Each structure stands twice: as structure tokens, then as C-alpha cells.
């Protein structure tokens, strides 16, 4: 049974469920007035700015065993949603197998924020800066939905994050080394990059985030090409048309122009008083193209020429 902790003043009631099923039962019981929380960093900015009211009830997930920690086995990694961003950054298995994710997380907030914020919250927000990196790694989300566990591709979930009916709790983020990423796959080497554009050099909300990943063969041909972009209040998305341009192709100036055009057409950026959509579109296209140019060049250098 969860312990109910009564807080004084206007603080919400805090419930601490012991397992996912209890968390879902609490959420069902409280409805919109009960809000899941772990690090609470995003919620606090929303309360402070007035963009969301402080709820009557917080359902604190941090006491649930099994939601923490990172499990690696058989070429896959399951990241518990309670894993702090700072822990994720420091985890060797993440840094070696999924460096784009480590880089993305390193660019979120500041150390004090990363010591509190969880990867689960970043994902569940649907606008977290880690998402483009997770998208190009084709992450899957594991959910507890009452009695059973459900798996959804991250890309599918992001297509409409509010779509799912009923109460569900994120219990894991699964990253598999797919064919394009697995060692011993087709010839060539895995290349990838993550970039975040903000309004200052560090500790900044994102304007644009991009991630690219692919396999570069010795002759400069790319396969398994994946690209994603997000940033600000934009829900990150795979850039399928841009991927098609480079799939099986080489990084030429002409290809870069066509990739950029595809990004400009396909990416749906946010817009606010600080940066317009047109600027963000252009920046996303430029950053993606420049990263491919750099990766292709580095790939050639890596051949020992």
C-alpha cells in the first residue's frame, strides 16, 4: 500500500506507489488531478510560469523498483525511466553503443537539473531534447497498461502522444542495435551526430535539435540512414523523405542540397517570440547537411587515406 504523505500549505498530496500497477490505480482514481512525477524539473517550470497549475495530487514514481537502472543484454539496452540524465551520461554502455543519446543528454539543462531530471520525464514530455537521438536509434517504449506490458515504437507514439486510451505508465526505453548499427553487419562504419541549437552556448532551451545516423561504406555510400529533428515545443519526428535522399547515396554537394530541401519540406518546427519557424527550418536543414558532410569527410579520413 502506498504511503500518503500530507504536505502543509498548498503543496499537493504526494502518493508513493510501490509498483507500476498501484501507480496506474492511483492515476485512475485521481484522474487529471493526479500527476505522475519523478525528478519534477519540468513540472516545476510549468507551475512557476503558470503554464500548468499545481495538481492536487502528485504520484511520485521514485519508490517503484524496476523503473530505475540500465539493463544491457543481447545487444539491447533497456533504460529505466527513473534513470537520471546525469547517470545516463556517465553510463559506459550508453556512451559506447549509443553515443548520440549520451551527447543529447549532456546538452540538457545544467548539472543541477540533470541530477534531478529523469530520462522517462524527458521522453514522456514528448518534446524532450533526448528524443531525436532516441528516434534515430529506433527506440521502443515499454508501457505498463493495467495488467500487461505494451511495446510501442517511439516514432509511432510521438506521432500522436495523446492518442492512447486509458492509464499507462512508461516502464522502460528499449534500444536495440539494429542491423545498421550492429557490429558485423554490412561493411562500413557507423557514423552519427547530434546537435542542439539554443539561444546561448549552454544551459539553454532548444530551438532546434537534430540527430543523424547511418552506415558509411568505404566508397562513401550511406545505408541505414536515419534522421530526426525536434526542438522547443516541436514534437520530434523522423525525417523520412530526407533519409530516402541519402539512402544508398554518397554525400555530394548536390545530395546535400536535396537533403536540405527535403528537411525544409518535411520538418515541422515550433515557432515563438524568440525564433520563427523559417529560421528553425533552415537551421535544422543546415545542421543536418553539415553533419553529413563532416561525417562523410571524417569517414574518408578514417580510411587512412
Amino acid at each position, binding site marked *: 500500500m502506498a504511503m500518503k504523505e500530507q504536505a502543509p500549505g498548498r503543496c499537493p498530496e504526494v502518493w508513493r506507489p510501490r509498483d507500476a500497477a498501484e501507480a496506474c490505480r492511483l492515476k485512475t482514481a485521481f484522474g487529471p488531478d493526479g500527476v505522475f512525477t519523478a525528478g519534477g524539473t519540468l513540472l516545476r517550470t510549468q507551475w512557476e510560469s503558470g503554464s500548468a497549475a499545481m495538481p492536487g495530487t502528485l504520484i511520485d514514481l521514485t519508490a517503484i523498483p524496476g523503473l530505475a537502472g540500465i539493463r544491457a543484454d543481447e545487444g539491447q539496452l533497456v533504460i529505466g525511466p527513473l534513470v537520471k540524465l546525469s547517470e545516463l551520461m556517465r553510463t559506459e554502455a550508453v556512451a559506447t553503443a549509443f553515443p548520440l543519446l549520451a551527447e543529447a543528454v549532456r546538452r540538457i539543462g545544467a548539472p543541477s537539473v540533470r541530477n534531478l531530471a529523469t530520462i522517462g520525464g524527458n521522453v514522456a514530455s514528448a518534446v524532450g531534447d533526448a528524443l531525436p537521438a532516441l528516434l534515430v536509434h529506433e527506440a521502443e517504449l515499454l508501457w505498463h497498461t493495467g495488467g500487461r506490458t505494451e511495446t510501442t515504437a517511439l516514432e509511432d507514439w510521438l506521432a500522436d502522444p495523446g492518442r492512447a486510451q486509458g492509464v499507462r505508465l512508461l516502464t522502460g526505453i528499449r534500444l536495440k542495435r539494429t542491423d545498421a548499427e550492429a557490429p558485423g553487419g554490412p561493411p562500413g562504419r557507423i557514423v552519427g551526430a547530434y546537435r542542439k541549437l539554443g539561444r546561448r552556448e*549552454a544551459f539553454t532551451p532548444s530551438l532546434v535539435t537534430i540527430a543523424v545516423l547511418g552506415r558509411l561504406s568505404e566508397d562513401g555510400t550511406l545505408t541505414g540512414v536515419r534522421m530526426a529533428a525536434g526542438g522547443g515545443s516541436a514534437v520530434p519526428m523522423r525525417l523520412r523523405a530526407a533519409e530516402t535522399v541519402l539512402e544508398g547515396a554518397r554525400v555530394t*554537394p548536390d545530395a546535400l542540397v536535396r537533403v536540405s530541401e527535403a528537411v525544409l519540406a518535411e520538418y515541422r518546427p515550433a515557432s515563438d517570440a524568440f525564433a520563427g519557424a523559417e529560421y528553425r527550418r533552415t537551421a535544422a536543414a543546415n545542421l543536418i547537411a553539415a553533419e553529413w558532410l563532416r561525417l562523410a569527410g571524417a569517414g574518408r579520413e578514417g580510411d587512412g587515406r
Partner: protein
Amino acid sequence: MMLSRETAGGRWRIRPDGPDKVTGRLAYLTDLAAPDMLYGLVLRSPHLHARIRAIRTELAAALPGVHAVLTHRDVPGLNAFGISRQDQPVFCFDLVRYVGDAVAAVAAETIETAERALELIEVEYEPLPVLDTPEKALAEDAPKLHPQGNVMHSNAYKRGDVEAAFAACAHVVEETYSTPRQMHTYMETEGGLFVPEPDGRLTVYAPTQHGLLDRLQLARILAVPEERIRVVSSPIGGSFGGKDELNIQPYGALLALAAGRPVKIHNSRRESVRAGLKRHPMTIAMKTGIDASGRLLAHRVRIVADTGPYATLGAEVLNFAAEHAIGPYRYANVDVESVSVYTNNGMSGEFRGFGGNQAIFALEGQMDRLAELIGMDPWEFRLLNLRRMGDPGPYGQTIAQTDGAYQVWQKLKESALWHQRKIGGRCAGGRDADVRDAGGKGSGERKTAASAAAVPGNSGGNARPPWIRTGIGAALVMHGFGFGVGLPDPAAGRLRLAEDGRIEAVFGYEEFGQGLLATLETLMIETFGFAPDDLRLVIGDTDRVPDSGSSTASRTTAMMWQALRQMERPFRRKLLEAAAGLIGKPVESLALGPGGVMSANGGQRLIRYADIAGKTAEPIAVETHFHFPTSDTDKFGAHFLYSYSAVAVKVEVDELTGRVRVLEQYHAVAAGPVVNPQGYIGQIEGGSGMALGYALMEDAIMENGRYLTGNLDTYLIPTIADLSGSTAVEPIEDLPDGDPYGPRGIGEIGSVGLAPAIAAAVYDATGVRVNRLPINPALLIRKPEELWKAVSGQ
């Protein structure tokens, strides 16, 4: 010689307030608490502009735990404040004019109870048309925000005939510059503790830049004699002008007296943003013409400033901007008109640089554009038109002469950073690669095609990608300090041998992080030979200090230096005479030293200061009062003392994103002798950090009169990652023979020149002229087809 820890040698001291600050031991005034303390909160207007129909406080007053609920009906004295013009109501009674306007205040036993009480106060408003731009406020049919209308202040200066001169010009540049609403962003938000004392006096522990002026303003509001109020105002967690005007003090004072208990108020960051001062947004239109040889003939300036709902020092800021829009250049024909306009936007007011930041961004922009028109190096163009020693000030007024303008010009020209530019190559893809012109519309259109550039990875080593462009730019600043003609600008100081043997240096100044205490300590050590342990530095307490004037306008170091210069001989004589009498030696054989009076030749200590204290018939104390030196002109606000700086900067523009990074800065500063090397570097580096933010990211954006940047997650200031480039500071210390004024002010000048220098460097890098701050990356970003065409053909 560059100023640094190494070159400063033994003058680089640990500042007296340093250890407690870096360890977190130091208690700021907003950290104080008192037994039985209540918490105060202010109810602020939800409307930008509305008529108040009714205010009902009964429900709030009846809430258990609430000890006072105040409105305009509860102000015993003047229901208004303002340093120079009292047009801001303590509590609004007929109109509210912005979303920070105060309507009521409560004191309660907990913050939660006070919040609940605010919700229970009922205010009926009738919304009125909103004037959220100076243009709307200046429209003929605009509602009047104040009885005299919406022009808060205007200022005009003319000499010669600019229109006739323009007709004779070979080249004319006309441009309109816009500057943002910058926030001071001190770490400690406004707040304080207000304590009614058993003897009926009120003690105010609240940051300000002029304790005695707060005391005067509070006495008017409370209708009590000034002597009944004590203001303790240091240490302060940053101010930069933002805490110069009253902020929460009237509410804390009124609540404490009404409740008969201590009251603490401390603004949240959101409330600080909402109610606090910002730098005036200005639109500055300049038309400047030269003859065929490049000599300036005519300069016309039109300034429109958005001062928000109330004056504070908005008139003085405008005067300063108008004077500095003329600057250190020679022109026969000048025509400056400026106006500062009341609006329903946020409060604008005093802020480090005081109108010079806006004016000099525009003026230096004109110089760069004119130089280009005539095909001259921009720095040589400045020299051609630069003031020389002996020239009058911008208004033709008498000023204290130095060769500062030429000195900083020369030093910058000789600097290694400027030399990088002159030897050409200008790093990768410089300004001659292609030229774009943002023009008056800021359109960012390109005039010529992009050049080919190297593909990264092919040229090997550490080649820069072609979309990274670097450029170098420079700007010159002539910055007046002190208040200028027509304003009371007192100075004073006191030296005393205290009963416990400490030497007290007493000034009515404030320590808000600038290093005032360290500067005073250094002055005392170097003037008299005292040791740090001999001293007690007394500031920031109206019960103890003389009226030294405010800690604003870059004036305190100069005023302390001048005060000590006046007090040095009498104080030394009194101490030595007392010592001579006690130890029976001739005065001439004695000298002051660390710990006590020494033998003048041998350096041996003969008597400790503690053994002199209390042993003399007369107290050993001297005091001086004087006025900040002013010009003999009758032009209001004209300055007499000036500091000069020249700033060079190297930037990197990433054309993938349009973002600008500052790589390297060089500051030459001509401001007389360096009193406190650490403080000097701190002021120039710290000021330039603010200027970097002003140029590249800071803007408290208002939409329909409301801040979109309510906290520091949206209002972004530079972090260490943005300030990682190197900064060299080269002071020019020499002054003309016989100069009686000593060190000049440097508290603000560092915050001025970097922004126009960055704009020049961005042009050097990209060919895009910017006329608006902060620089919008959308003007500098390149379209994909341009970028990748540049790569093709390799």
C-alpha cells in the same frame, strides 16, 4: 601593459568581502530574519491600463494571520516616489498604468497566508486603451497617462545648420537603430527587512544605491522626520542601477509600521521581472554626412525612448543618451532631438551605461558605415574625426581635459587583436568573401554571390569549415561620469581613530559587488601606510555615514580618492601630533605605518594606534564635504569628467545557424590611475559580459505590455560558456600634469563599447550590417543552396 594578477603584483589583494562571499557565509540583507517577523506581499495590477473603480480589503483583513492590509488610503504622507520626479504612486488610486503597478499590500504570519490574503482583495477595474508603443502614446488622440501628457521628457541641442551642411556632403549615411529592453539580472532580487524599533524609529534593511535618498523618500511617504528612519543598505547582491530607485521599501516600511512588527519582503524572480526596472528600449535615427575627404560635416540624431509608466531617472537617461550620441567626434553642425515617452509597458530606468549603450551603438554604427562609403579603414576614419586634447565636450562645454580619446585609439591600433585584422587573411572567409546588406529593413539580402571555400576534411589539419566566418570589429567610447550639470551631486567622507584603535573610513556608499570595499581598503593602505587589520570600513548605514552622494554614475572611486586627498594631510597630522605628544618625540621624526606610528627613518613601531585612541583631548577625526566637479555650461546634464575606451573584438559567425560567438576581446581604457587592479578588471570584464548579452541574446520581450520572459529560463543572460573567450584589459593611467581629479570612473564604460564592436565584427565576418540588438541569427543564417553550392566545385 595589460592588467592582470601578475602585472598587478602586490596590489592584487584578497578583497575584504571576498572570503565570506565565495564560501556563502555572508548574509545579505534579504537573508535577515527577525523574531515575530511577518511576510509582506504586494498586490499588483493585472491590467496594463485601467481605471480603479473600487478596492475592498475587508475579507483579506479578516483572514486569521493577517496583520495589515494597506491601500492608498493608508499612506500617511506623499503617496508617490521617484528619485527626480515623484510620479509613481506607492499605491495606485485612480489609474493603473502597467502590470507591475501596486494596488495593495499585506503582511501576514506566513507567505501562504499573505498569498491567500492577496486573493481576497477585491479590485474593480475598468480597462482603458493600452499604449504599448511610444508611437501609440504620442498619437494625438492617445489617452494621457499623466496629467501633463505622454511626453515624459524631451531634449534638444543644435549647433550650426545640419540641413545646409548635408547639402554640401559628399556622402551621407542614414540609419535607424533599435535596442532591447535589457534586464539587470542581479542574483539577489529586491527585498528587505523592516523593523519598528522600541524607540519608535524604523530600521530598513534593504539594498539601494543611495541610503540617504531612500531615507528621504521614505520620510516623505511615511510623513516622519528623516532622523526617525535608519537605512542599512549593504551588502547587496548586485544592482547595476536596478535598485537605485525605491522598489519594495515603501511597502515594507508601511506594513511594518501598521502591524507594529518586523516585516520581510523579498521579490520572487517573476515579480522582480514584472515590477523592476529595465534598460530603456530606444529607437535612434541618425543621419551623418562627410565631405569628400571623410571629415564629418553634419550629424542629426532623433531618439525615441520607451520609459514605461513612470519617470524614475528616465529624463536623466535620455539626457545622457543625447549627449553621448554626439560623442568624441568633431562636427560643426549637430542637431539632436530626443524624447522619452510614457507607455503602458514595463518600467524603464537607470542601468549601467545610462543611455550611453544605446547611443554609442548607433553612433559607432554610423562611423563604420561612413568609413566604408568613402573606402577608409574604419579606425583611421575615426582618427580623422576624433576629438583632441583641448577640444570642448559634446555640447561644446568646458570639460576636464585629457588625451584619453586619442590614447585609447592609439592603443587599440597597436593591439595584437587589431593587428590580426590588418595583416589580412582575416581568418577564414572574411568580409571580402561576399557582401550582404541587412540595410534599414534588416533583410539580410546578399549583394554578391558566395565565394568558394574549402571542404572540411579535405584541407586536413584544423581547417575551419567554410560556414564558420570570423571577423574583427572595434568601437570607441567617451563616457561621462557623475550626474552632470544641474543636479545635486554631493560627496563626503570621514576618517576617525575609533575608541578601539581602529582607523575608521566612513563613506555613504554601497557595496553591491563592484569591489567598493576593496577599493577603499587599497586607498587607505596606499595613502597612509595602514595595514588591512588597522581599518574598519563603514558604509551603507544612514545612522553612521556622511552624505557622500549615491553609488551610481561611475562616481564612487573618484569621490573616495578625492575625499582622501582632501583628508590625508589633516588626518595624518592629527594622528602624528597625538603620537608625538604621547611618546615625547618630534612630529617630524614620526610616520604612519602598519599597526601604529613608526619612526620616520628607522621604520620601527613606536606606539600602536590602540594606544593613541582615547588618550587625546580632542577626537582624532576629519570630515570633508564637497561637490562633484561640474562644467560651467548651463546645458542640463552636460558632463565635465569623462573616461574613454576602445574595444576590439573577434567573433565567429556560424552561418549554419547564424549564431555569433565572441572569441577574443581587447579593451583599452583611459581613466587615470588604477586604484584597485582586481576591481578594474572586474568592472571591464563584468561590464563587457553584460554588453555581450545585450548584443547577442538579452531582451525582455513584451507582448501587449506583458513580459514573455518571466524568469531566467526564458530571459537568457550569458553563461561562462558564452564568455569563454579571452579578454585583455589595458589601462592608460597617465593624466595631464596638474590634473586634480585623479582616477576616472570605470564602473559603466565596460558595458558600452563591446556591442557596437561586435556589430562591426559581424559585418567584417559576413558582410551583414545589423541595426538592431540583440543580433538576430536569422539575419546571418545562410540558405542551404548557397552553402552547398559553395562546397561544390571542390
